C-alpha cells in the first residue's frame, strides 16, 4: 500500500497543473509564515505602536481618518515645533498613511469594524507577505528553476535584515516601501525583457507609489539608470531598453513630482540627474541606431564624429552653465555622508547623531543575513555565467547595495532583497544539481563532450557550460543533507533573532525577575498618561528631539522639537537649554513658553538609552550654532573622561540636564551611597539643587522625570535668591547680593 501511495504521490508531483497548484499553496504558506514570525511583539506585549517615528505616522493616520484626505493634504500642525509649527501635509511621505487609511475604509465598507490602531500595527506584517510574493516573481525572471523563486520568497519572508523594520507595530515607511522596491524592480525587469510600454507604465506607477512612501526612492532613481548605462556600455543597447526606460522615466518622474514633499526635486537636485542624463543619452542612441541602419558605414562614421562631437560639446556647456548659475542644486548633506563616512560627523552632527546612520559593523551582516551572506557571492557568480540583461541588473544591484549597506546601518534594508534573490539562485542551483535521481551514463558524457568540442570552435569558452553529472549516491546525500541542515539552522537563527532582538516595542521594556518570570517596565506610558491627565491641553513640553513624536502621539501635548529634524537651529536651542547653567536656560525656556521639561534617566534601572548618554550630542549640536557659549571640551575632565560622579566638571554639574537627571536621586540611598547603575558611578553626597524648576513627576522606575518650569517670582526676585531664601540662607545671600555698602545720598 505504501509503495502505491508513494507512486501516486510521485505522479501527482509530476503533473504541470498540480505543480502550479503546489506552488500557489507553498507561496501562501510562505506568506503566512512571514506574517506569523512578525507577531512576537503583539503576543508578548500587546498591539502597540513601537519606537519613535511610528508614533508620528500613527498620529498622522488618525488625523487622516478623522479629517479626510483634503484636510490631511493641507495639514498645518501647530502642536509641533512650537512656536514654528510644521506644514505636515507638505513635508511627509503620505503613502503609508493613505494605504492604511484606505485599508481601514475598505474594511469598514465590508462591515468589519476595526480600530485604526490595529490596522497600523498589522500593516507591516501584511505587506511582508506581499514582499515575499514579489521576491518570488522577481527571482522567477532570473532563472528557469521555480524552486529558486520559492526559496527567494522564503528568505525574503524571514530574513532578519528585513524583519528588523517590519515587525508588527513598527509602523514606519519601510513597512510598505520594501514591498514597493522589490515589486518595482520586478516590473522593470518585466518591461525590459518584453520591451513593453504597458509594463514600463506599471513600473512608473509603482515607482510613484514608492516615492510617495519612502525617501529611499532615490535608490531606484539611481539604480535603474545605472543598469541602463551598464547595459549600454556592454554593447547591449536595444530598442527594448529604449522603450522601457523612456516610458518609465517620462511617467515616473511626473508621478514623483505629484508628491508635495518631492515637488521640483527631480529636475533640480543632483541625485536625480543621472536618470535625466541617461534619458537624454538613450534618445541619442536611438537616433544613431536609426541613422546607422539607414546609411553606409563609412558615411556613418563621418556622421557620428560630427554629430556626437557637437552634442557632447553642447551638453557639457549646458551642464557647466547650469551648475555655475545655480540652477542645479549641489548634493545634499545626507548624500555626501554616503560617500565620505566621516563627513557627517564633522559638518552635520544632527545626521551623525542618529544611530541608524552609523556605518555598519561587520557582525551585523551575519546577524541580519546569516547563511545568505555566504551564498550571496555564489548567486552573483551564477548571474555572471548567464549574463542576460536581467542578470546584469542583479549584479549592478549587488555591487551598489553592498556598498551602501556598508556605509549606513539602515541601508541594510535595501541590500536584503538582492541577497535573498542571489542566495536563492545559488541554493536552488546546488539542490537542482544534487537532487537529480538518475546518474549520467557514459553516453551522456560522450554527447556532452562532443557538444563541448563543437562549441569551443564557434564561441567563447565561458559561454558553454560543461555538462557534469553527479555519479555517487553518497555525495548527493551528503550535499543535500548539508544544505538541508544549513537551511534549518537559518530558520532557527531567524526565529531567534526576531524573537530576541527585533520584537521589543522599546516603548514598553521587558525584564526578567530573579525567578525567571517576566516583568514589564511601563514607565514611558505611565509618564505620558500623567502628562495627558494632569497638564493643560496646550502645555508645551520641552524634551530632546527623540521623544517629540511620542509626546505628540501618546500624551497629545505640543512639543518644541521632534524626530522630523528639519530645523537644526531649533534643536540646537533645546540642546543649549539642556547643556547650559540654569541662569542661561531659564530665559530660553521662558521665551519658548515651555511649561514642562521631560528627561529620560536610566541611572536607577541601568537603562542605556537615556539622556545622559545622549547628552554629548546635545552639546555638539548646540556647539555647532553657539561655539563660544557651549563647548564640548568643558564637559570632559582634564584627563578626557566623560564622568558624572564627584569628579565631573563644573560645567557638567551645573548643566540643566545633569541637575534634572540627578535631582533628589541621592535621597533614594543611604547617605553617601548613591550609585548610578547605568554608568557605575558613585555620586557625590550632596545632590544638585534646582531653583528654576519644580519636580512634577517621576515615574515608577525613574526612567522619565518631568519638571515644571517655575513662573516668575511674585516679588520680583530672581529664582536663585528666592530658593536660597526659602532654604534659610538669608544672610549669606544678602551680603552677596548687596555687595559693598554705600552711603545713601538721597
Amino acid at each position, binding site marked *: 500500500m505504501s509503495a502505491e501511495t508513494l507512486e501516486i504521490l510521485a505522479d501527482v508531483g509530476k503533473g504541470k497543473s498540480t505543480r502550479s497548484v503546489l506552488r500557489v499553496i507553498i507561496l501562501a504558506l510562505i506568506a503566512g509564515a512571514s506574517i506569523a514570525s512578525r507577531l512576537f511583539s503583539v503576543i508578548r506585549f500587546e498591539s502597540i505602536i513601537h519606537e519613535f517615528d511610528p508614533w508620528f505616522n500613527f498620529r498622522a493616520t488618525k488625523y487622516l481618518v478623522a479629517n479626510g484626505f483634503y484636510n490631511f493634504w493641507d495639514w498645518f500642525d501647530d502642536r509641533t515645533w512650537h512656536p514654528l509649527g510644521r506644514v505636515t501635509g507638505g513635508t511627509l511621505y503620505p503613502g503609508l498613511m493613505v494605504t492604511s487609511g484606505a485599508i481601514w475604509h475598505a474594511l469598514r465598507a465590508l462591515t468589519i469594524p476595526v480600530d485604526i490602531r490595529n490596522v497600523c500595527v498589522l500593516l507591516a506584517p501584511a505587506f511582508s507577505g506581499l514582499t515575499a510574493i514579489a521576491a518570488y516573481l522577481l527571482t522567477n525572471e532570473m532563472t528557469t528553476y521555480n524552486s529558486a523563486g520559492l526559496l527567494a520568497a522564503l528568505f525574503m519572508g524571514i530574513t532578519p535584515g528585513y524583519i528588523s523594520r517590519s515587525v508588527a507595530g513598527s509602523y514606519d515607511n519601510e513597512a510598505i516601501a520594501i514591498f514597493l522596491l522589490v515589486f518595482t524592480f520586478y516590473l522593470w525587469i518585466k518591461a525590459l525583457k518584453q520591451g513593453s510600454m504597458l509594463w514600463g*507604465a506599471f513600473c512608473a506607477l509603482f515607482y510613484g507609489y514608492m516615492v510617495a512612501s519612502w525617501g529611499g526612492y532615490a535608490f531606484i532613481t539611481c539604480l535603474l539608470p545605472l543598469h541602463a548605462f551598464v547595459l549600454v556600455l556592454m*554593447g547591449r543597447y*536595444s530598442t527594448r531598453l529604449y522603450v522601457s526606460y523612456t516610458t518609465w522615466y517620462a511617467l515616473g518622474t511626473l508621478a514623483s513630482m*505629484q508628491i508635495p514633499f518631492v515637488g521640483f526635486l527631480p529636475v533640480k537636485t543632483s541625485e536625480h540627474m543621472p536618470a535625466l542624463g541617461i534619458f537624454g543619452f538613450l534618445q541619442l542612441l536611438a537616433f544613431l541606431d536609426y541613422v546607422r541602419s539607414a546609411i553606409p558605414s563609412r*558615411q556613418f562614421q563621418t556622421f557620428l564624429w560630427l554629430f556626437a562631437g557637437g552634442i557632447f560639446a553642447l551638453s557639457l556647456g549646458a551642464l557647466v552653465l547650469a551648475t555655475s548659475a545655480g540652477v542645479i542644486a549641489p548634493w545634499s548633506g545626507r548624500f555626501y555622508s554616503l560617500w565620505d563616512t566621516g563627513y557627517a560627523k564633522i559638518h552635520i552632527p544632527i545626521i551623525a547623531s542618529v544611530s541608524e546612520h552609523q556605518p555598519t559593523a561587520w557582525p551585523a551582516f551575519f546577524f541580519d543575513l546569516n547563511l545568505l551572506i555566504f551564498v550571496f557571492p555564489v548567486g552573483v557568480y551564477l548571474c555572471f555565467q548567464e549574463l542576460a540583461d536581467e542578470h546584469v541588473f542583479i549584479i549592478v544591484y549587488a555591487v551598489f547595495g553592498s556598498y551602501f549597506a556598508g556605509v549606513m546601518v539602515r541601508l541594510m534594508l535595501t541590500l536584503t532583497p538582492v541577497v535573498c534573490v542571489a542566495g536563492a539562485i545559488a541554493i536552488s542551483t546546488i539542490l537542482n544539481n544534487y537532487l537529480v535521481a538518475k546518474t549520467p551514463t557514459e553516453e551522456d558524457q560522450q554527447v556532452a563532450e562532443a557538444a563541448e568540442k563543437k562549441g569551443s570552435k564557434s564561441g567563447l569558452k565561458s559561454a558553454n557550460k560543461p555538462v557534469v553529472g553527479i555519479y555517487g549516491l553518497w555525495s548527493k546525500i551528503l550535499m543535500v543533507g548539508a544544505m538541508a541542515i544549513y537551511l534549518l539552522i537559518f530558520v532557527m537563527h531567524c526565529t531567534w533573532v526576531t524573537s530576541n532582538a527585533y520584537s521589543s516595542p522599546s516603548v514598553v521594556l521587558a525584564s526578567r525577575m530573579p525567578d525567571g518570570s517576566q516583568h514589564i517596565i511601563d514607565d514611558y506610558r505611565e509618564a505620558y498618561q500623567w502628562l495627558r491627565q494632569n497638564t493643560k491641553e496646550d502645555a508645551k513640553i520641552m524634551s530632546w528631539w527623540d521623544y517629540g513624536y511620542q509626546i505628540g502621539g501618546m500624551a497629545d501635548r505640543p512639543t518644541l522639537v521632534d524626530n522630523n529634524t528639519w530645523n537644526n537651529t531649533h534643536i540646537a536651542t533645546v540642546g543649549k537649554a539642556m547643556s547650559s547653567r540654569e541662569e542661561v536656560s531659564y530665559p530660553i525656556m521662558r521665551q519658548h513658553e515651555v511649561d514642562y521639561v521631560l528627561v529620560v534617566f536610566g541611572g536607577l534601572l541601568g537603562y542605556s538609552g537615556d539622556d545622559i548618554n545622549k547628552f554629548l550630542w546635545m552639546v555638539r549640536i548646540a556647539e555647532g550654532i553657539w561655539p563660544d557659549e557651549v563647548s564640548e571640551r568643558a564637559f570632559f575632565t582634564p584627563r578626557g573622561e566623560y564622568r558624572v560622579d564627584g569628579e565631573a566638571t563644573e560645567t557638567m554639574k551645573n548643566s540643566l540636564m545633569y541637575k534634572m537627571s540627578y535631582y533628589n536621586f541621592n535621597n533614594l540611598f543611604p547617605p553617601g551611597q548613591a550609585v548610578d547603575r547605568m554608568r557605575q558611578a558613585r555620586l557625590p553626597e550632596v545632590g544638585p539643587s534646582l531653583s528654576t524648576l519644580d519636580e512634577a513627576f517621576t515615574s515608577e522606575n525613574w526612567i522619565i522625570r518631568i519638571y515644571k518650569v517655575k513662573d516668575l517670582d511674585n516679588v520680583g526676585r530672581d529664582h536663585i535668591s528666592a530658593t536660597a531664601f526659602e532654604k534659610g540662607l538669608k544672610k549669606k545671600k544678602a551680603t552677596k547680593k548687596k555687595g559693598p555698602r554705600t552711603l545713601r545720598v538721597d
Partner: protein
Amino acid sequence: MAQKRNNANRGVSPNPKTTATTSTTTTSSSTTPLPPIPNPSAPIPGSRPTSSHSAATTSAKTSASAPVAQSWDKVVSNLTSHYQKNTPQRTKLVDAFMAFLVVVGVLQFVYCVLAGNYPFNAFLSGFSATVGQFVLTASLRIQTTEGNKKDFPAVSPERAFADYVVCSLILHFFCVNFIN
C-alpha cells in the same frame, strides 16, 4: 569586451574590419540577424578609437579631412533618400507628429528662457507632456516598424497602439494634475 562578445555570438556576420570596407548592403544585413543586440560597437562613440576600426577610421579621416562638408552633404542626402524610400506612409504620419512635438517643446523652452519660468508647475507639466508624448510616440514607432519585429515577440502593432493609448492617458492625467 563588447566587441569580443559580439564576435562570439554571431559567427556568420562579417568581421568589423571588413565591415568598414564593404558596401551598403553588407552593413544593413549585418544589423538584422541579431535582434536583441544590434551592433554594439556603433552606439558607443567613446569606444571607437580603441576598437579595431581605428585603422580604417584614421585612413578615412585623412582622406576625408579636406572635403568634410562635401561628405556631410552626401550623408544627409543619403539619409533623406533612404527615409523617403523605405518609410511607410503611416510611420511618416507618426514622424510628423513627433516633429510637431519637438517644435512645441522647443517653443515652450524658449519661452521659459526668455520670459521666465514663473508658474514653474505649468511650464514643467507642459514641457514634460511634450517630452513624454514624444518618447511614447517614438516607442510606438519603434514597436510598429517591421525591422524591429524580432525585438518584440510579445508586442503586436495593435497591442503597441493600445499600450500607447493607456500610457498617454496616464501621462496626461499626471500633467493635468500637476499643472495647478
